[in-house]
C-alpha cells in the first residue's frame, strides 16, 4: 500500500495536480515526455481574459 501518486503529463493540468498533491503532503512522480515541463501553455504568450503572461 502506497501513498505516492503518479501524474502523467507536465502541462498546466499535470503541474496543478502535482503541486496540489505535493502541498497536501503526498509524494508525486510527474512524468513528462518532452525534455521540459510546461506543455502547450508554455508556448502561449499571454492568456485570456486578463492578458497575463503564460509563463
Amino acid at each position, binding site marked *: 500500500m502506497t501513498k505516492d501518486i503518479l501524474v502523467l503529463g507536465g502541462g498546466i493540468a499535470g*503541474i496543478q495536480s*502535482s503541486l496540489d498533491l505535493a502541498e497536501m503532503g503526498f509524494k508525486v512522480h510527474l512524468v513528462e515526455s518532452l525534455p521540459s515541463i510546461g506543455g502547450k501553455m508554455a508556448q502561449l504568450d499571454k492568456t485570456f481574459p486578463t492578458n497575463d503572461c503564460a509563463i
Partner: protein
Amino acid sequence: MLDVGRHPNITLLAYSELEKVEGEAGNFTATVRRKARYVEEDKCTGCGACAKVCPTPVEDLYNEGHAKRRAIYSWFAQGIPSTHAIDPDHCRVLSGKKCGICQKKCEAGAINFAQKERVSELYVGAVIVATGYDVFDPVKMPEYRYGQIDNVVTAMEFERFLSASGPTAGHVYRPSDRKVEARIEELEKKVKKSQKVLDRFERNHEITTHEFYGAYKAGNLNPGEDLEKDQDKWAKKYEAHLENARPLKTLREKAKGFTSAKKLAFIQCAGSRDLRFYPFCSGFCCMHSIKEAIIAHEHDNDTCSVIFGMDIRAVGKGFEEYKIRGENNSNVSYKRSRVAEITKDADENPVLIYEDTKEQKVKRQTFDLVVLATACAPAKGNRKIADILKIDVDQYGFFKTDSANPLDTSRSGVFVCGCAQNPMDIPESVAQASSAAARAAQTVINKNDKKAS
C-alpha cells in the same frame, strides 16, 4: 513551473515515458522509461554554451517550425528542468560522425554520449492522466490551403509570432516575407564568396571582371600566358556569380516594401464543429482568437482584425466583456460567416471567399495574414496510454468519463483532467486538475485507512 522543480515532494521525470502499469487502486506498479538525454542532469547547469557552438541546425518545434534550434537544446529558454538534451536523430556524434564540440565546450563536463536510457519502477496508489491535446492539423482542410499559402498559419504559430521570445521577437512578420529574407541572406553569402574569387582574378590580371568578360565574349581578348590559363575559369565563375547576383537584386527591391502584417483574419472552427473531423466545439478557440487579435493590436495600433465564425462563444467569467473590449478598443470586428475558401494574390496576400450572411452576398476580401483557430484534437498518444493503463477512450480518442464522475476513468484509481478528458481552457483545466488531485488523495487515504482498520 519553477515550484514543481523545487518542491521536495515532487520527483520530476522529464523526457520519460510510461511503459507498463500493473496492480490495482492503492497499489500500482508503474514502469517508466527515462530516455537518454546524453547530458548528466546533476552536472548540467543549463548555461547553454553547448547549444551556441553546436553546428547542427534542427527545426524548432517549440516555435512551431518557424525557428531553428541546435541538435543539443533545451525545449525552451525557461524550461524546467533546465538540463539540455541531445537530439539523437540529428546529433553528429550519435549518428557516427565526427564532432563533439559541445563536449569540449561544456565546463561542467555534463555531456555523456554513452548515457543509456534507464527504466525505473514506481509504486503508486493513484494515477492522474493529464496528457493534454494535439493541435489539429489543418492540412486536412484542402479549402484553406494551409501549407500551400505561406501566410495562412495556425493559432499556435501566430502565438509564437506574438511572443517576445518567439522567432520574430514579437513582431508579426509574414512567413512569406521571412522566406524571401532568408533567401536574400543565403544569396548574399554565395555572392560574397564568389565576389572574393572574382576579386582575386582581377588583382592577378589587373583588369576588371566586367572588361575581361566583355572582351572574352566578343572574342577580342588578347591573353597573355597567365590569363590564357585562367580565362575559362574566370568566365565561368562570373556567370555563376551573376546567376546569384541578379535574383538577389530583384529580391532586395521586393523586400524594401515589406511591413509587418496589419490586416488579420481569424477563421474559427478549423477542424471543430465540422462533421468531416470533430463535431464538438473546442471551447477555447473563440476567446483565443480574440486574445490574439487584442495582443496584435496592442503591439501595433494600426492592426485591424476580422474574426470569421458561425458564432462567438464567449462563455466564462469576464469573457463576454473581453470580447466587447476587443471590438471597442482593439479594432476587432466579428463576421458571422464560415469561410469557404482561401486563395492568394500575386503578392502572397491570402484572399478569403465567404458569404456575408447579413448581406447574403458572396464576397472576396484580401488580408495580410490568416490565422486558423485550429481544433483541440485528442492527443495521438492517448490510445497507447489507454492500452497501458487499461482504461477506455471515447469515440474521438479523449479518455472516457461519465457526467456524474467527470474525473474518473473506467479503472478505479486512475483519474483524468484537462484536455485529455475534453477540450477546455486554462481556468477549467486548473480547476479540474485540483479536483483530480483531491480524487487521487481520497483514493490513497481511503486505502490506507482500510489497511489500518
